[in-house]
Every structure is written in C-alpha cells, then in structure tokens.
C-alpha cells in the first residue's frame, strides 16, 4: 500500500511518525489522492451528506443526553426542559429531531441511486450489504429515539413494534418480554431504549467505516457503469470531490434549516406532545414518515398463508422487504450496471420508485377499503421487482452498447453537445 502513495514526509517529525504510525500517509492516500471517476454526477454526493448527517446526529444527541432523563415520570418534562430552559435547547432538540428525517431522506436518495446505477453489482456486493446493515441499524436507532420523548406516539409506537416479535412461534413471547424488560412497555423499556439509542450510532459509525473501506478497494462506480480503465478516467478526491461534496452539503442544509427554525414540528405528530398514557390508545398510531412504506407492507398481510397466520406473515414480509436487499446482487444478474444502458429496466425502475412512494402514502392511511387493496398491490410489486422482474430482465433484455471507457463517454457527450449547438446555430 505504501508503495503507491505519493506521500513524502517533509521533515524529521513526519518521517518519525510515518515509520511508526503512517497516519498522514493513510489520510493522503484515502482522503486526498483517492482516484475517483471524473464523470460522477450529483447523485453521488449523498454519501458525503450522509457522513455529515451522522456527525450532526451524534453531536446534537450527545448534548441532548446531558439534559435528558430516561425515567417515565420525568422523560416528557425533561425534553420540554431542554426546549424551554436549556440555552438554544429548542434549536438543538429541533436539529436532532428534524435531522433524523433529513438523514433518512438522504439515505433514500443514496439507496435509490444505487438501485438505478447497479452499485450493488460485482465487485461491490460487500459495500452494498454493509449499506443494508447500516440502513437496518438506522431504522432501529430512529425507532428507539422516537420512544424517548415519552409522548403518546412514543409509547404506542413502542407497544406496536415490540409486539410484532410476539408473532414468532414458540419463542415470541419470551423475546417480547426480554425486549420490553417486562410484560408491557414501561420504565425498563425506556431505560434500555435510551442506552441502545446512545450505543447504536457508534456501531453505525463503525459499519460506515467498513462501508468506506470496502468502497476504497474497487473504487467508486460511476454513471456509465464502465470500470475505470486508466488514470485519464479519474480525478483525485481532493480538491475535486471534496469541494463538490461540500457545496452539496451546504445546499442540503438549507431545507434542513428551514424545518429546524420555521417548522420544527411539521414532520412529527401532535399526539407526541401528549404525555404517554397506557390507558388511552390514540385514534391512529402511525410511525414516522420514513418507516411508512415498511409499515404499509406489514399491514398489507391481513390473511393467513397455510400455517402462517396474518400477524407472522406481516412481520416476515416487513423484515423480508429489507433482507431481500441483501441478496439483490445475486438476483439481478444483468452484466450491465448502469440503468442508463438498460431500456427495459428503466420503466420498471421508475415504477418501483413510484410504488415505494405510494406505499409511504398508504402507511399513513387507516387500514381499510381501497387502501388495503392498494397496499397489497404495492407489496406484490415491491417483491415482484426483486424476485421476478430483475432476474427475468437479465435474461431477455438487450442493453444499449456501452462506451469503451469513461473518457470516451465524456468525449461522445461533448461531441453530441457541439453537434446540437451547431445545429441550433444553423437554424438561426
């Protein structure tokens, strides 16, 4: 590894350090020189946005933990204490709560970018699987974080979600009681959720480290899906991509700030401003928007399949909808990575995106009438996309011809633009 580095220690101290812990060499190699395809578009900047968001959540979260009290008698008021009496508490708490939504928005962009450009395909399967693990950890962290303010939605959300585990045959009830620390959601539940909510982000950070490590072995994919052929195809990460990413992060902060300062509660539910009450069930229990598609799929299964009852079926479908992503690299066997060169893939992909948004909408509606039917259709398409459409397309689709290299693709695009410009000039 050291051999391909361009780092030359400038003075004795650097040389001394380099022989003992090549930290500067490592940073130069991976944070500055790291060759990245020059044709990466803006969808590729969301990795950096996500890294920044993880930092934002950890920093604001640590500050909140200094003032928060994980006790059912005091949790609700301690969050209000943060909002009212802690200096800038309303902004710090708002940043953390809105930050969760922004984090998920960014992760969905990142995931759907991967789905379109085939980022999960060989040799990047491990990067993708680690990403799915991060996504799962994020959902667990967000869910437990939502319980901490101990409002009505916190309590009833925790009750509904932990209750899912009771659907598991034989060991379901013991698992349920183990998760809750008792027979019902109560003080032990809040304590362990707080502890785990503090722990999981650091585990996420560690898996992000692996995710980036795995990325730095084959390097970035790119919009053409053609691997880097020569040095002419790439640019060093710094300053080209650091600057591009920084620009996007600042732009991303604008809607983020909009919500934090002007509408900090708009992404939440008014019921969570009512302190948890085990004796009053809210008329409608809904999770946060980013979990809605999976909630819709959970509720879509309201029928028994052979010996599997509806509840267990729903749980299997919900967890299955995420676990299926793990095996995606082996379901989509098409040799062509980028969706841009796959004419049959494209309409199915965009339908998948719309279907996901539809499921998100349906997750917020009550489970009745047309909504249930649409949820079933949506769930069927979600799984059909991975299990039937992608494997089939790999066999029958004729992809468009691929460029020989990234540089050639850029050149072709440029000639195309020149041709169009010339044409427009003639027309004038």
């Amino acid at each position, binding site marked *: 590894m050291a051999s391909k580095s361009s780092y030359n220690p400038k003075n004795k101290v650097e040389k001394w350090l380099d022989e003992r812990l090549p930290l500067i060499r490592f940073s130069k190699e991976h944070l500055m020189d790291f060759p990245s395809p*020059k*044709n990466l*578009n*803006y*969808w590729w900047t969301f990795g950096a946005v996500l890294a920044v968001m993880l930092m934002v959540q950890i920093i604001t979260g640590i500050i909140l933990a200094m003032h928060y009290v994980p006790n059912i008698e005091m949790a609700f*008021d301690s969050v*209000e204490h943060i*909002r*009212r009496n802690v200096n800038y508490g*309303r*902004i710090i708490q*708002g940043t953390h709560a809105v930050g969760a939504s922004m984090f998920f*928005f960014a992760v*969905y*962009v990142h995931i759907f970018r991967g789905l379109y450009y085939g980022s999960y395909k060989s040799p990047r399967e491990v990067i993708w699987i680690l990403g799915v693990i991060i996504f799962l950890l994020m959902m667990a962290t967000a869910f437990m974080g939502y319980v901490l303010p101990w409002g009505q939605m916190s309590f009833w959300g925790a009750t509904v979600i932990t209750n899912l585990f009771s659907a598991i045959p034989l060991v379901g009830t013991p698992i349920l009681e183990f998760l809750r620390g008792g027979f019902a959601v109560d003080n032990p539940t809040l304590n362990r959720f707080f502890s785990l909510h503090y722990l999981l982000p650091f585990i996420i950070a560690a898996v992000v480290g692996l995710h980036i490590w795995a990325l730095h072995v084959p390097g970035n994919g790119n919009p053409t899906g053609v691997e880097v052929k020569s040095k002419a195809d790439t*640019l060093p990460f710094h*300053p*080209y991509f650091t*600057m*591009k990413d*920084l*620009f996007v992060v*600042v*732009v991303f*902060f*604008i*809607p983020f*700030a*909009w919500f*934090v*300062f*002007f*509408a*900090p*509660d*708009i*992404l939440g*539910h*008014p*019921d969570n*401003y*009512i302190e948890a009450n085990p004796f009053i069930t809210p*008329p*409608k229990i*809904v999770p946060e*928007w980013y979990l*809605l598609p999976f909630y819709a799929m959970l509720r879509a299964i309201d029928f028994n399949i052979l010996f599997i009852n509806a509840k267990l079926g729903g749980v299997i479908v919900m967890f299955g909808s995420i676990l299926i992503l793990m095996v995606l690299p082996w379901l989509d066997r098409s040799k062509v990575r980028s969706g841009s060169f796959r004419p049959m893939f494209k309409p199915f992909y965009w339908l998948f995106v719309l279907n996901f*948004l*539809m499921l*998100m*909408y349906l997750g*917020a509606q009550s489970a009745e009438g047309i909504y249930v039917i649409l949820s079933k259709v949506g769930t069927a398409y979600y799984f059909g996309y991975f299990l039937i459409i992608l494997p089939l397309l790999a066999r029958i689709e004729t992809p468009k011809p691929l460029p020989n290299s990234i540089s050639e693709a*850029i*050149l072709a695009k*440029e000639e195309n633009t020149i041709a169009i410009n010339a044409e427009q000039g003639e027309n004038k």
Partner: protein
Amino acid sequence: MIIVRKIIALAALFFALAVSAPSLAAKVGGKPAELQKWSFAGIFGTYDTNQLQRGFQVFKEVCATCHGARLLAFRNLVEPGGPEFSEEQIKLLASEFMIEDIEAEGGERPATLADNWPSPFASEIEAREANNGALPPDFSVLAKARGIYQPFPDWAFNYFTAYQEGGADYIYNLLTSYEDPPHGVEVSDGQEYNAFLGTGIAMMNPLMDDLVEYDDERLPRTVEQYAKDVAAFMYWLADPHLVSRKTIGLNVLIFLSILAILMYLVKRKIWANVKH
C-alpha cells in the same frame, strides 16, 4: 444547467416525500376549521405582546380555574419574546399564590419568579371530582398537541409555508363553536355540544361576551376576541422561544444561501479545466 436540473429533480423528490407524509391530524367529525391570521405565522412571525398579555388575562381569570400550566414559570412571563410583563407586576402576582415547600415554616410560602404556575387541583382525582369525571388537560404544550384536519392537497403546502399554527386554530375554533345540538344529535349529561368537534364536550362553554374586562377599551369584548387572544397565549406557552428561533433562522438561511453560492463558484473554478 445540469445543476439546475438536478436541483429541480431533488426538489421534486423532496416534494413527493413530503406529499406522501401523513396528514397531521385525524379528521374531527365537525365543521371545518376557520383558519385565523396569526402574528406569529410565517418566517417573519413574532408574538404580539399586547395580545399575549390579554390572552394571559383570559387564562388567569377564566381557564386557570380548572386548567394547570405546570411548565410555565412566573419568570417566563417577564422574559423577552413573551407577554413581557414588568418584573414588579409578576413578583406581585406570584406572591398571591402559595407554594407547598417542606422547608418553609408551616410547609407553605408565597411563590417567587422562579416557581412554576401552581396546579389548580391537588391531584388528578380531585380534578376529576370537580369536573364531572373529566380531567382538564394541562395547558403547557396543549397548543402543540392539537392540530386541525386539512384535506389533500392543502396540508402539502404547509411544508412550504411553514404553517405550524394548527393548534392555535384548533383552540380558536373549539372555543367559538359552542352551539345547540342539531336535530337528532344526543349529547350526554354533563356535556355541551360543540360544532367544531361535531360531538359533545365535557368542558362547559367557558367564554361569553363581556366576560373579561380588557384595559384597552377599543377592543371588542367578544367570545371571538377572547378565543383568539387566549389561543395566541397558549401557543406562546407551548413554543416560548419562537421569536428568537425565527430571528436566528432567518440569519442562518441568508448565511447558508450566500455560502452555497460561494461554494458553487469555488467548485466551478476548480473544475473549470476538467472535461466531465
């Protein structure tokens, strides 16, 4: 151009996500809410100090008989961005309340600026006994715990107008909608009919014209005026730092916008000689 297109695509995606998010409140059976103009709405919104003072008067003279506000400290009534009473006024007011304190002689002492608003009832049981079995909710964050129902696509625009005043609108509409029940609607004993809820409500109509004497005689002494003032006060009670937050927010947005432009120019300069 490509950047503009990408930003539009992102904005569209964000919009789609926002649109698919849940509407904020479950539909109530009654008549649709009449939205009010609030001085604290929008990105330039601030509280009207006079209105908060009047709202506090209504709260103290009418609502506080049954409703508590356990998170309200007397000092909050003096702090900037709120009703901004003078310190003397509130010290005097606080001294009229007795606070239980085991360290004081006789177990009681007059309240100070540091104390919170005392609860009107000693316990939940006592509160229910006094109110026909119903528990009057605490006012501290009540304006945030209520929302109004808006059909699609109305609520989708809230993300762009930053409409957050659903709770204040709820309170206003509730207080101004006490009516005789329509034909065929039965209201159980100890309840009154509320057209906004479309059902009976355990709280008796608390307001009537000329109930509270405002110092400013130019203001109408009507239920509508009282309802609006107390709703504004309750919104402040639930979101006491709104004014400073929005002021900082405006500066943050201006700063980020300028920084984004600078970042873009630097990025363009760095990439100027690269074909990509």
